[in-house]
């Protein structure tokens, strides 16, 4: 047994074996942070690289993320004990009036795979619910999507609510009719045309303090 095997079980998305592998490492008194960093997070980093290069497909990447999550659940009590926290918290949802959520789901799953805690509000989310959830979960980031031209303006409304509430959460947007110009226009902090881009954006924005324009 080794951390390398944990890494390999994620990279090859063998979800049936990961729990036992992580437990064995815990029993062997390997440091929880080593299992987390060198096993789980390093593996998802490798998976993300393969995915971004187009060599790994979405269903494979999602299964790898699911495998990682199973391992993380086994490890979680030790992480809590050692006060090791997620990379950040992200609130996700489709805006009021929009029920199209396949892209949003993909982003949520990939964010989890990248080590974020995700609060998924689902579809047809009221602007107030976004603001409340971000406050309650102390999220650093909010990711909202719209597929319809009729629901795009709701994203601007949501951003207005966050400003009114004095929230420091940063907001990223996406969806087929949205583009970078629109994101700038509505004062979003970022835009991505796909899920891997959204994860990169999330990593960048959560790392960097303060608000910045979508163009940066």
């Amino acid at each position, binding site marked *: 047994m080794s951390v390398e095997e944990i890494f390999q079980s994620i990279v090859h998305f063998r979800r049936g074996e990961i729990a036992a592998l992580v437990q064995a490492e815990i029993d062997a008194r390997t440091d929880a942070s080593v299992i987390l960093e060198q096993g789980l997070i390093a593996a998802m980093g490798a998976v993300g690289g393969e995915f971004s290069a*187009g060599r790994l*497909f*979405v*269903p494979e990447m999602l299964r790898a993320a699911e495998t990682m999550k199973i391992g993380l659940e086994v490890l979680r009590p030790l992480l809590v004990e050692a006060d090791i926290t997620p990379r950040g918290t992200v609130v996700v949802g489709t805006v009021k*009036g929009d*029920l*199209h959520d*396949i*892209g949003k789901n*993909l982003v949520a799953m990939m964010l989890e795979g990248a080590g974020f805690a995700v609060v998924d509000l689902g579809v047809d989310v009221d602007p107030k619910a976004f603001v409340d959830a971000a406050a309650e979960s102390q999220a650093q980031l909010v990711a909202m999507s719209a597929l*319809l*031209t*009729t629901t*795009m*303006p709701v994203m601007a409304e949501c951003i207005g609510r966050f400003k009114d509430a004095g929230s420091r959460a940063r907001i990223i947007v996406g969806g*087929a*009719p949205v583009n970078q110009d*629109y994101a700038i226009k509505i004062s979003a902090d970022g835009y991505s045309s*796909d*899920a*891997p881009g959204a994860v990169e954006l999330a990593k960048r924005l959560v790392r960097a303090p303060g608000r910045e324009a979508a163009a940066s």
Partner: protein
Amino acid sequence: MRVHCQILSEDERQKIHAESIKILEQIGVKFLSQRALEIMHDNGAKIDRDKRIAKIPAELVEQALKTAPKSFVLGARDRARDVALPRSDSGYVLDLGGVFTRDFRSGERRYATLQDNDDAMRIFDEMAFGSVVWPHSIAEGETPHSDAIRLILSTFQHSSLHVQDEFSEPREVPYVIEAMAAILGSEDAVRERKLYSVAYCTLAPLVHEGGMCDAYLDLIEFEAPILIFPMPCTGATGPCSLFSNIAMGNAEALSSLVLFQMARPGTPLIFGDASGSTDFASGGFLEGSPEMVLMTAARGEMARFYGLPNTQAGCLTDAQEPGAQAVMEKLLTTLPLVLGGVDLVQGPGALQTSGMLCLEQIVVDDEIAGLCKRVRDGIDLSDAKNLFDDIAEVGPGGHFLMQDSTLAACRSDEFFVPKLSNRNTFERWSDLGRPDLYSNARRRVEEILAAPQRNPLPDDVVGKLDEIARRADDELK
């Protein structure tokens, strides 16, 4: 005989139908509209009110199939462009569902405007195979709450073809009815002529939206036809086999058929499909793929299995720009549908997975339609085409260029004459400036837009439409 392409055997159509019924009876369909849920309940579906799911028995499907009209006419402002369904040849639906336009001058992608919509309508009006138009989606109009109404009214003004669109809420319905009454002279004529139909996309997997559903339950009182248009994406919003994705899309379509027939028996329905496949590298929806056209062609066969008119998504591409990939994918996703005999192919005009209008692509797609029709028409082996006597007259070693039959046939439908493709010698082609498909198409676009609009509406009707639009601006805020 005409060339025919068949995707499913009779047994396979039965098998897909049986699977669809199994999905409807055992899994059921979710209705977000309370009105729709009550209609399903009142007609004998098993309802789970908490989950809003209706399990639909086979008998309800059978009953709905009995009352759904097997033929009807999609009226056009120009009666000569009426579309009688079913058709012997495939017609085409201009696909302006996306929010972007490729700017004709700069070639850059930008958000679409009302002017882009109107230009596209005028171009499609001149196309030989144009049958039905979808208005453009406008993301950022000046009057966001009434943009949908303004678009429909402007489309009526700039197109003489049948208009198909969608409503997102019931309060939009009266303005469009009033506009059609202004064009046709009375509300009775609105019912009779059917200038307007709507597309109804179920939300895969197995969900019916609320607002759109309610709007359509209002609209069917005016006998407007509904295009049922499921879009399950195999591997993402649909199961990851073509077989089950077709069965599930068919189940969504049958559940829509049941709803609208129970709500108003005799409602004219077009049994369509716009399935996609998944780009597994990104998770994106693909519609220029061979799998897409296999599914929509199969669903076209299911429509005929039920005896219903149909529109199938085709003539589509995932290419970002006009060019070789666009032409290749559009031809691939048109030919099987035309050879399968679908009534209407929905897709021309768009690039980027139906996300971006390209004016010159409308003209290129009409050329593709012409090519496909020629293949579909096949080889005429009638006595009139048996030229044995000519062969005898010319004899070994002669030529046929001077025969009467050659003169008569050279401009007939037997020989396709391209409008855009290059057939010149190298020298002639060089002298012409080495034109390609798209440069020829661009010239045609310029010609059409420089000429007066074909079949304009009378000034007083345009004035009435303007007044309705202004009222919608005020009232829909």
